[in-house]
């Protein structure tokens, strides 16, 4: 295995009420798609927010693509090639679709609009529409497209299927696989939707009570009963 693109060790973080993550360690090889599963409140979104830097870590280290991220603010992490799609999407509702995409292009390696529009054709059709008026699925695609157009090396994807109709979930899954195959995009994906997880993830971590409790390979991910168990413990 080549040098990991992301390696996290002993990561600890949380909110005023106390630590949510305690001693999380994980790593991701370049071009890998890795899932994080766990029941509600396990700390999945906290992990993603801490990785992008919107939440300060209280201990541990984050190493990404040859650089130490620990202590850097979110905007500098993004500039190093970390893309973030939050749970709940957080597109800019009063900007148009095209303007939302432009907000992803202020950093170095930005991609062409055409590449992104080819991946998500519906966004091209609606490029002049105010983003807040898109459907949930279209907003999710926009949030992913906005992160992708920055040309990230690693995409942090938090619950992309939430409130999204199945056909669009499938479309998102295909887009991820294509970008992974053609552009070598690495993805760390938090997901409760087992179909999507099984479709895209090569490996997965199980997160429970703020710590990694298991590492699952491809065959274990394919085992629906096992996954359900991790989600409901």
């Amino acid at each position, binding site marked *: 295995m080549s040098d990991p693109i992301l390696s996290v060790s002993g990561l600890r973080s949380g909110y005023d009420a106390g630590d949510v993550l305690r001693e999380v360690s994980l790593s991701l090889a370049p071009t890998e798609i890795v899932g994080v599963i766990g029941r509600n409140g396990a700390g999945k979104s906290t992990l993603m927010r801490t990785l*992008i*830097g*919107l939440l300060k870590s209280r201990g541990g280290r984050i190493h990404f693509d040859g650089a130490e991220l620990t202590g850097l*603010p*979110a*905007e500098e992490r*993004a*500039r190093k090639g970390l893309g*973030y799609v*939050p749970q709940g999407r*957080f597109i*800019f*509702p*009063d*900007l148009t679709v095209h*303007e939302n995409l*432009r*907000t*992803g292009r*202020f*950093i170095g390696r930005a991609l062409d609009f055409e590449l992104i529009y080819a991946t998500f054709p519906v966004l091209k059709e609606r490029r002049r529409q*105010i983003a*807040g*008026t898109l459907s949930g699925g279209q907003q999710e695609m926009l949030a992913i497209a*906005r*992160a992708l157009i*920055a040309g990230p090396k690693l995409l942090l994807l938090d619950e992309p299927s939430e409130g999204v109709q199945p056909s669009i979930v499938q479309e998102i899954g295909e887009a991820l696989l294509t970008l992974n195959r053609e552009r070598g995009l690495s993805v760390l994906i938090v997901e409760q939707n087992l179909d999507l997880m099984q479709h895209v993830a090569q490996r997965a971590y199980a997160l429970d009570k703020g710590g990694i409790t298991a590492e699952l390979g491809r065959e274990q991910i394919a085992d629906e009963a096992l996954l359900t168990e991790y989600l409901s413990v």
Partner: protein
Amino acid sequence: MAEIVSLLYQFGTNAAFLLLAALGLIVILGMMNIINLAHGEFMMLGAYAASAAVHRGLPFPLAVLLSAVAVGVFGIVLERLVVRHFYGRELGALVVTWGISLILSQGTLIAFGPFMAPIAIPGGALTVGVYSFSTYWLFLMAICVVLLAGLGWLYKATEFGLQARATMQNAAMARALGIRVERVYMITFGLGSALAGLSGALLAPTTSIAPFMGQQFVAPAFITVVVGGGASVIGGAIGSSSLLSLVETPVSFLMGSFWGSIALLVTALVLIRILPNGVSSLRLRRRTRGARG
């Protein structure tokens, strides 16, 4: 005929005054959600800088530009040293800018005394029928149009404008996309301060220049901002300043400027009662309805 021209002129004068008084405040409040209680004092500084420059023999237009730049730089320095530590704490920002306003007005009183020699209104007068109009106020109306167009261009058509609008809608998300939000805030505060300085300098010839002159601008500025609402910052400013002067003008014309001011306050009260989110919420409401339909 002459009466109509005169009414239009009064209307333009009132609207221009409200807009000039409010612009700097609106930019900072709308984009950063910071209520800058030192806004009036920033305008006072602009007026002082312009008068001082004119008294030293500088041509008025140059003095105005210089004042805008000086107050803008002053705003950036204050933002770096003080204001930025209060982002996300609206009440803290309110108190700290109030403190700054006290220091500025009292400091000016100590340094320059209770009055500064006035400067003459540039330009002459136009006569229509029995009425005569100051060309300077016509010029100020034109300046307002230019400033609004310039701000519209800055926010709609430039890279900085897009970064600022994204930051305004969701600062955390903007950060996660690599937008340097701190820088956006610094420039925005500088721009708002420069606009306050510019307005203070432009209005300096029309008023007496004193350490506490800022107070006369603050009330109309806040009324314009609140009536305008936050849905569309610039649109709200245009809407509220024209609505307010639409009421103020005929009342002043018929009953005198005292009753005109009262009419302005009553209109503001009624408008806030009917449209708690301001005039600009009308536009937003129509837009969302259109999208659903």
